[in-house]
């Protein structure tokens, strides 16, 4: 099955599901919704079982994923593929702050949506053992607390507090439903994926240039969105108020179902908005005018016109009777806005407002605000799509295709393919020897399509280690400590 044809099969044919309630205070254990088994016939997904791998031919390497196989695949993934050493290296942050890794909350979603919060581990080994034992369907990362999260019941209530966490952003395609015509709900396709590309470009620029953050890790969530983990020390130390201020600085689209005009600009246009508009400009014509055809059908046009001042709307309606080309239509709209700006005293920025309303990133502010809010971990599996939550390479951003992100079935299969029986016996023998095991694991992920993403992650970690080193040098220079 080729996933890259013009119109994609939706990644998840089941209902739209709200992803909420990860907010820290809610619960330790929380039963969540039943995973709905995909009914046969909805999609022709290939069924995989571990013992079936051997008979799969090479042309079927774009393995499709079936939810039912997850319990069989997860042990393999955690045993041989999950990049534990990098993962630990990341969350340990060079061991600069005492107990930084040890006081970090992890939470696991197990089979049947059993939700286990406040897990914590003292070493990489412990984390590894526990994950291999529990085989979580989903892993969330929480805050660094004042005490070990797994002992939170033993400390006096009130003294157990979330102290630090990466500044995180969650952008979810469902929030764009009113402005995309190709899909809705949890479905995505290459057409609307451009929205995520724009979102990353805009936010990454602002986080770096405006806020001065250096270490932003962008991750594909595994289904319909992207996450950003800002890992700078200053970002991790931000208070709740500061996080919400940052999130609001970055939010331009405001209002719910009851608001029609969701972006309102006024004089003067802040440099941040100007910068963001330059990004939107690059994609707007291709994405919105041609891809989404926002000035095509009658309904779409009405939606755009509703955002305009009365007089402009009337003139345009008349003009649109004769002009059908969306790009021409847009040019006229835009020149009318410019005319209006030169004649009227107060700024009319409606063409910019439209561009932003249709393309500007929509943040889930609540996720960014809370220090204790949980967010799905990188390299965790999305249980519905089977895709691994992988880092996104910003240098290759325009070419990033969510449908090319490996699924757990694919990488598990890749792992098995070139193996001869001899080799397998060999690894069985070495199972108990830790060093050999480590080396084997290194080799293992390198044989799969996960390799390039782990490499990306490595580079990211290297960058952080580098600036940490610079920081240490600077400090010792300051203290004349040679």
């Amino acid at each position, binding site marked *: 099955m080729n996933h890259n044809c013009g119109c994609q099969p939706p990644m998840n044919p089941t209902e739209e599901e709200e992803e909420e309630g990860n907010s820290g205070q809610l619960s330790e254990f929380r039963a969540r919704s039943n995973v709905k088994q995909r009914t046969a016939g909805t999609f022709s997904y290939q069924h995989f079982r571990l013992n079936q791998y051997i008979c799969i031919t090479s042309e079927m390497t774009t393995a499709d994923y079936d939810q039912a196989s997850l319990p069989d695949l997860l042990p393999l993934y955690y045993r041989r593929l999950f990049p534990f050493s990098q993962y630990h290296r990341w969350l340990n942050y060079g061991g600069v702050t005492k107990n930084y890794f040890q006081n970090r909350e992890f939470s696991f979603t197990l089979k049947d949506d059993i939700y286990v919060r406040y897990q914590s581990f003292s070493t990489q080994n412990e984390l590894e053992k526990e994950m291999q034992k529990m085989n979580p369907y989903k892993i969330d990362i929480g805050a660094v607390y004042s005490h070990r999260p797994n002992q939170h019941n033993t400390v006096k209530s009130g003294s157990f507090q979330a102290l630090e966490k990466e500044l995180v952003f969650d952008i979810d395609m469902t929030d764009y439903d009113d402005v995309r015509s190709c899909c809705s709900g949890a479905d995505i396709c290459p057409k609307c994926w451009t929205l995520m590309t724009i979102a990353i470009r805009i936010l990454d620029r602002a986080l770096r240039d405006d806020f001065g953050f250096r270490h932003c890790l962008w991750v594909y969530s595994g289904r319909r969105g992207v996450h950003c983990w800002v890992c700078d020390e200053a970002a991790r130390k931000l*208070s709740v108020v*500061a996080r919400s201020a940052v999130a609001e600085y970055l939010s331009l689209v405001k209002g719910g179902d009851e608001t029609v005009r969701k972006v309102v600009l006024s004089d003067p246009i802040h440099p941040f908005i100007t910068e963001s508009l330059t990004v939107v400009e690059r994609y707007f014509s291709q994405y919105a005018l041609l891809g989404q055809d926002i000035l095509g059908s009658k309904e779409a046009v009405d939606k755009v016109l509703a955002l305009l001042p009365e007089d402009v709307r009337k003139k345009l309606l008349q003009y649109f009777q004769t002009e059908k080309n969306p790009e021409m239509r847009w040019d006229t709209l835009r020149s009318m806005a410019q005319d209006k700006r030169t004649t009227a005293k107060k700024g009319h920025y409606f063409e910019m407002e439209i561009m932003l309303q249709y393309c500007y990133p929509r943040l889930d502010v609540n996720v960014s605000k809370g220090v204790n809010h949980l967010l799905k971990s990188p390299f965790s599996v999305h249980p519905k799509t089977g895709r691994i939550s992988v880092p996104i390479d910003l240098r290759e951003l325009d070419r990033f295709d969510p449908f090319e992100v490996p699924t757990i079935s694919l990488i598990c299969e890749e792992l098995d393919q070139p193996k001869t029986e001899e080799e397998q016996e060999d690894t069985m023998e070495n199972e108990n020897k830790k060093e050999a095991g480590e080396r084997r694991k290194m080799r293992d992920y390198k044989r799969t399509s996960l390799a390039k993403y782990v490499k990306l992650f490595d580079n990211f970690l290297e960058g952080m280690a580098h600036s940490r080193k610079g920081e240490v040098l600077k400090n010792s220079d300051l203290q004349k400590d040679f």
Partner: protein
Amino acid sequence: MNYLGLIINIFVSVAKTGNDRNAFTSFSCAEIRTLCGNWRESRQIDRSKASSLGKLSEARYRTMQFYSRRKKLIGNSQTEQLYGHCLQFYGQPPIENISLSEFETFAVDRLKLLKTVENLGVSYVKTSELYTKKLDAEFSNLNFPYKIEASTKDDRKPQTGPSEYEKRRKDHISHFILRLAYCQTEDLRRWFIQQEIDLFRYRFNHLPSKNIREFLQYNNLHYHTISIDKKKNLMDKLVTSSFAVSGSTVDCQDFYKVPFQDALDLVRTRKVYLNGGYVYIPHQDIVTIVLNDFRTRLSKALALTARSLPAVQSDERLQPLLNHLSHAYVGQDYSIQKSIGKISLEQIDPLSAKSYPLCMRQLHRGLRDSHHLRHGGRMQYGLFLKGIGLTLDQALQFWRSEFVKGKVDADKFDKAYAYSIRHMFGKEGKRTDYTPYSCMKVILSNPPSQGDQHGCPFRHSDPELLKQKLQSYKVSPSGISQILELVKGMHYQLACQKYFELTHSIEDSGFSLNHPNQYFMESQKLLGGPGAGVKVEVKREDNPATKPPNPSPHQTPGPGNLPQEVAAEITEDLDSFFQDA
């Protein structure tokens, strides 16, 4: 911060009273060292003779003036030293002794002031003329340092009211008393800090620039400025990112470069140039940095004060007063249910049309239409339902029956949603019995985003949609235009109240609306429905209009020596001041 630096030394004089008001003497005192928890009862309190305190307030004021111990402190040099500037940073706690009655009046007055700040903040734009005018009036009413007098402090011309010194002293002491009352919980602290900050902002903004410089110097506040070259380089960005700054004004004022964490309000609203993690703040916006300092210090100080609380609470004379001061801010929270179980599920639909405020009607309608509400909506509506008297079982039944009509089956409901409903009723998690959202909370926090139906329709709807909605609810065209006018002026609660009056066909609703559940109860009271009984029992005063809005000290029962009944009376009075305010 210095531990001892926070000591408030309050001298409580306990009055012995007789029939002759001139024979008033102060004879008993106790010194409270709030932090050290060191109580010294110098003489036993004579409880039996504490009667007719109210009459004596005047005399007490006179006594205060001749009070010898205090007089020693009012040396001129000390005035300068203590209150050298009309605006204070409240760095040093007061060290003098004050009478219990002064303690009370000061606290009550400041609370009134803060309450006014809060109310005005909701009804008016904080920089508008009306806001300023009303707040000015309140300042002079309550004898707090008034901005005009700031510049004329050296004038010794005869004044009718209290002197500038007295006002500044009152400002100082009352602030510290309320710190005691408002340090107890996270919620109280947040409220207090918010109001004090608004107050401070208002006062700071009205200082002449000369005084601002003095203030900064006086309080040792220094911030990093950028060089002229750098300013020239950044000119464009500075102009487009700061409001009311043009090329010419950039030249003539200093820009401060501070980490963005120190000017969050400006960052949040994008009113400042932000680059590389630093904001560039024009001198005219310096209030933000100063406020940030103020907030940080106040918040730290409150946390420290909270630790000393047990010492204060062990005093039976102060404790009820402080408790009531701190309760005054919230008003009724509509969490205590007398009507619980009086409403059946069948009644909800008719009730939603008759007695629901618009926000809840919208949520109810949304729920019935889509058989689903998102998290924000479930919280806002769920707690409202709890407030009007649904039991937990009813609530579960209500939500389940609606959700299973949609995409959620019963099993999924039990797994995914039932928990949060039990949580609302305090049956899960940390078992807090959550209170229904007030208008303030609905309007100010968690604005609705894509797919959400919660929030305040007057605040979060497009006027055009609001108009259509009102039309569909058969509100008269003239009524609609009145409502839209109020919305335009950002008086969302007044707009809602107007909606109440129009839908209930009354001229004047006679209450001041600040809670969706209040709306419901008032409506039920008018219509004589099942929710009506609640109000009478829960709210203490039903007819606030008959009470004097601004009782002078003469009408306040003095609390010299506080026997229980008197204390109760005082607190009841306090309640009425503030619920009404």
